[in-house]
């Protein structure tokens, strides 16, 4: 097994941090390490915290870390902030709110830039979670970027998704809309010392009533993250949800869906890489010119290039079998 993976499994923080970078930079070594670590995954409680910018996600995460630490659980955090579409740079500042945990050896906090992903997390967030899980963190918390209405990739990564709302965000129609409101396993109405809390809570309840009687009705928690109010109850709620997943068929289905999604994502990524690699080898430039001058249409060109990629791969496989 790779030296880095061994060191990380033994609790070496530097090795763990370096592995996340390897994966984030899509280096081949990162993939090899994930293969080694994968059998060690599956023990952590994986929590997603999502919500609009400024809803108080980072402050809430800080308090959630403290609550789990009180119970003696170890915690890993992946905090995602947006990368610049222009320079590719990023200011990763979620951990400002969590710095009191920086010296706790049982807490590992890592910031990630979205690096072009639009679903609220980065492309390597899933792998980073797997690494923390494999290295023995009892709880892994993913904080998404501040989201709007449809950045819902967190649902593919977390077992328990908490949607953080605040009073005064809009009327009941906003709450009825499709998208982000549908992925919450738990609702959190933060900044509950502000006016309008009751209204938000009622609107969520009414929305949930319309769904009927599902096996899990997402509970609603009110918190004042700044002061830590309501966080104990919220964490209880997370544990409840985990129990529900374990006891019902939903849990298994969700795990299987996650595996399917992961495999599909890896396949799409590999195919995308092949397309990039082969682009120039298939006379694409000639085709671009033809499409540009309206002599050909883009569908015909795309299919013909894909055909070439597939037959080329078949040839290569045939050769390696022999």
């Amino acid at each position, binding site marked *: 097994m790779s030296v880095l993976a061994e060191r990380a499994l033994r609790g070496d923080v530097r090795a763990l941090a370096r592995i996340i970078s390897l994966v984030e930079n899509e280096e081949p070594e990162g993939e090899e390490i994930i293969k080694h670590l994968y059998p060690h995954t599956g023990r952590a409680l994986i929590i997603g915290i999502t919500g609009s910018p400024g809803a108080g996600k980072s402050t809430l995460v800080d308090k959630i870390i403290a609550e789990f630490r009180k119970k003696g659980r170890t915690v890993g955090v992946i905090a995602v902030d947006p990368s610049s579409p222009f320079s*590719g740079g990023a*200011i990763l500042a979620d951990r400002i709110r969590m710095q009191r945990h920086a010296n706790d050896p049982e807490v590992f906090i890592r910031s990630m*830039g979205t690096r072009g992903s639009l679903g609220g997390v980065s492309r390597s967030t899933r792998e980073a979670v797997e690494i923390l899980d494999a290295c023995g963190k009892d709880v892994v918390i993913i904080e998404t970027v501040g989201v709007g209405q449809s950045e819902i990739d967190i649902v593919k990564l977390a077992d328990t998704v908490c949607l953080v709302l605040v009073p005064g965000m809009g009327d009941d129609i906003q709450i009825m809309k499709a998208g982000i409101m549908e992925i919450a396993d738990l609702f959190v109405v933060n900044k509950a010392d502000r006016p309008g809390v009751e209204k938000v809570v009622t609107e969520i309840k009414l929305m949930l009533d319309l769904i009927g009687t599902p096996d899990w009705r997402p509970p609603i928690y009110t918190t004042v993250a700044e002061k830590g109010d309501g966080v104990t109850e919220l964490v209880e709620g997370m544990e409840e949800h985990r129990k529900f997943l374990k006891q019902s068929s939903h849990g298994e289905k969700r795990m299987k869906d996650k595996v399917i999604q992961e495999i599909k994502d890896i396949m799409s990524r590999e195919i995308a890489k092949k397309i990039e690699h082969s682009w120039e080898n298939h006379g694409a430039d000639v085709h671009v010119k033809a499409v540009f001058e309206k002599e050909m249409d883009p569908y015909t060109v795309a299919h013909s290039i894909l055909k070439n990629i597939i037959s080329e791969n078949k040839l290569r496989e045939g050769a390696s079998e022999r």
Partner: protein
Amino acid sequence: MAEKKIRVVIAKPGLDGHDRGAKVVARALRDAGMEVIYTGLRQTPEQIVDTAIQEDADAIGISILSGAHAYYFSKIIGLLKERHAEDIIVFGGGVIPDADIPALLEMGAGAIFGPGTPTTVCAEWLEKAVAEKRAKETV
């Protein structure tokens, strides 16, 4: 393979609460395409070093306006050595008298940028320093 982004922690140790300079530098490094992990005010050397290690940072930039630069630089560089992380570059800026700079460089600081330094100078220096550091890396 994706591009290896430069990751840098920008931190403010100690009690002075003036972070405009740190924010200007953070922003400039962001615009140079780096991932800047900003820790906020009043960080202890231990917090800064643990942050840099967890974040797998290439460098730590510290901003000090309190006059305690000798203490913080030596403490942070010492902690990095203790944690076998002395490959992480340490640089800084703020109100640091020219006369004190040689001692900080002697201690292991990579560079000190005083008031008035164009931010591009800082970004270009860091890009070069990180490239040299990575060339030496084994793992």
